[in-house]
């Protein structure tokens, strides 16, 4: 009879789905989240993929590798990437100006940043086309130099920059506010000149926010339709974007073809966004942002 064991072996707490916590409503909110998520995002996407692959991998592959589809995908992703890069550079600059300086009209400028969010994108497209068309306000200035913007991929990029800008500004702004002035001041006292302070201190600490802004602007640009089709000219292989090709396929009653393009776009976008998220998680863990 040696039931009187004094030192119990260290017991591991069994893993449980639910940690007891004082924050209420875990079951309810998680349940709601999953249901909502399924209804709004997951189910439609599953049906999309089913539709695309319903006629077998052969059909899917043939539709996905159609030269015109590949061309449209290339145009879409390359222009979106380019636009996102431009947006990150100038969006960071704008966020910087809005956060760090006080000047008359700052609030107005701040409010105007959101306009691309609110404007119907077709309106933006029409307006941009009017300006950048060869006989337009800006287009007429560039035509003598042989530069064309409307009806070329450059036009697509400009439309995408327009609609993506607020995403970058609005993600970087709050983080920049959090990066204290003191960090910049201390850098100056240590002898760093302004350029060194920006490149070695400010920008690296903004990296996570810049990545988020990039991801959002990029995702928005890839999915953009309304503003782009007005300015793009929509020449297959040159300035025809994938979302437009999807609409064309639909008008041809080629629903499978449309679903295939959509699925391929979905996969590429998801892979890119997921990669960006991983980089962010890694940098957060390292630098301890958000805690």
């Amino acid at each position, binding site marked *: 009879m040696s039931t009187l064991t004094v030192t119990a072996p260290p017991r591991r707490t069994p893993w449980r789905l639910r940690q007891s916590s004082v924050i209420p409503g875990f079951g309810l909110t998680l349940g709601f989240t999953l249901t909502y998520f399924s209804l709004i995002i997951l189910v439609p996407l599953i049906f999309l993929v089913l539709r695309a692959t319903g006629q077998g991998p052969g059909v899917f592959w043939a539709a996905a590798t159609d030269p015109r589809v590949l061309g449209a995908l290339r145009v879409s992703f390359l222009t979106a990437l380019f636009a996102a890069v431009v947006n990150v550079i100038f969006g960071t600059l704008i966020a910087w100006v809005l956060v760090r300086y006080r000047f008359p009209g700052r609030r107005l400028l701040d409010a105007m940043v959101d306009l691309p969010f609110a404007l119907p994108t077709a309106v933006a497209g029409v307006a941009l086309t009017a300006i950048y068309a060869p006989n337009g306000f800006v287009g007429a200035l560039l035509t003598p130099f042989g530069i064309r913007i409307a009806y070329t991929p450059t036009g697509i990029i400009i439309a995408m920059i327009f609609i993506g800008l607020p995403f970058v500004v609005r993600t970087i702004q709050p983080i920049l506010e959090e990066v*204290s002035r*003191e*960090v910049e*001041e*201390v*850098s*100056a*006292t*240590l*002898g*760093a*000149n302004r350029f*060194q302070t920006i490149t*070695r*201190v400010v920008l*690296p*600490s903004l*990296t996570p926010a810049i990545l988020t802004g990039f991801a959002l602007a990029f995702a928005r640009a890839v999915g953009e339709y309304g503003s782009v089709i007005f300015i793009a000219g929509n020449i297959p292989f040159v300035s025809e974007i994938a979302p437009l090709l999807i609409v064309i396929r639909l008008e041809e009653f080629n629903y499978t073809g449309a679903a295939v393009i959509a699925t391929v776009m979905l996969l590429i976008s998801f892979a890119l966004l997921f990669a960006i998220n991983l980089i962010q998680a890694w*940098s957060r863990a*390292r*630098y*301890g*942002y958000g*805690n």
Partner: protein
Amino acid sequence: MEVRVSNVRKEFDGFAALKDVSLDIRSGELIALLGPSGSGKTTLLRLIAGLELPSQGKIFFGDMDASEKTVQERNIGFVFQHYALFRHMTILENISFGLKVRPRATRPPAGEIRRRAMELLDLVQLSGLEKRYPNQLSGGQRQRVALARALAIEPGVLLLDEPFGALDAQVRRELRRWLREMHDRTGHTTVFVTHDQEEALELSDRLCVMSQGAIEQVGTPDEVYDHPASPFVFGFIGESSELPVTVEKGELLLAGRPIGLAAPEARPGPARMYFRPHDVDLVEGDATLAGVVHTSRRVGGTRRVEVDLGPANHKVEIDLPFDHPAGERSQLTFRPRRWQLFPSA
């Protein structure tokens, strides 16, 4: 290095944060700028650093007019209350930053930078943590990294803005003692800002008491504590009690009654008497301060009682031995042992 602040005035949007301030800081001393919030102490520190520019007046480092120099050129070490460490850099990278950003001509070779950073890490007793990131350290450790980072550039002056303000009481005490030792070892001219009078008294060679954008008194802790130059300093440094008295024929009267204190040199008429709660003697007799104990609290090794001095309802605090039998409503008669008169406001 000597620092001379000469008739400096600083205005923010028409509000004068500093009004014509002059201060000589001696080479190698540890001086505290002490004052309540809004007294201008941090503004003065930032002006010395070059993070702000004076509206009027000049600041000299030795014989050099520093007012013309930028922050970068002043070669100062600045430590902020909330550390302001670079979160995306390791501790080692933080400490070496000031050396790495130097122009190629004056930048030490990489190996030398590393060696010096490791030495400083050792000096602030954080060896072995060089690969960590700031968010993996405690507050006290972060502040020591901030100090090592400031020392790395071999600053002419070390400026600390409430360096212990964000730390808890025990860490603060430890770091205080440690900073004093560091200073004695390295001998940097050091200016630190604090609103904690105890910290200023314990740590500094001299302290500079400020109030409302002006300097009230500069002196050693003993001078300032024992001979406050103004009622403000008396009230701000250490505990104090105040009584409105009248000087008559070289004697002090409270509400018309003599209290047994002679002031032969004082100008006749109303005055304010200041004394410290622990500077009193319990005495018997008529010519004393007599009152009734209002409240009684145990403070460390003593008992602090609030005494109600009758007629005009004056209340003063005095310290009694903790085992003194006086409780609430007990009668007490006492007399300040040391006191100081200031003219009535």
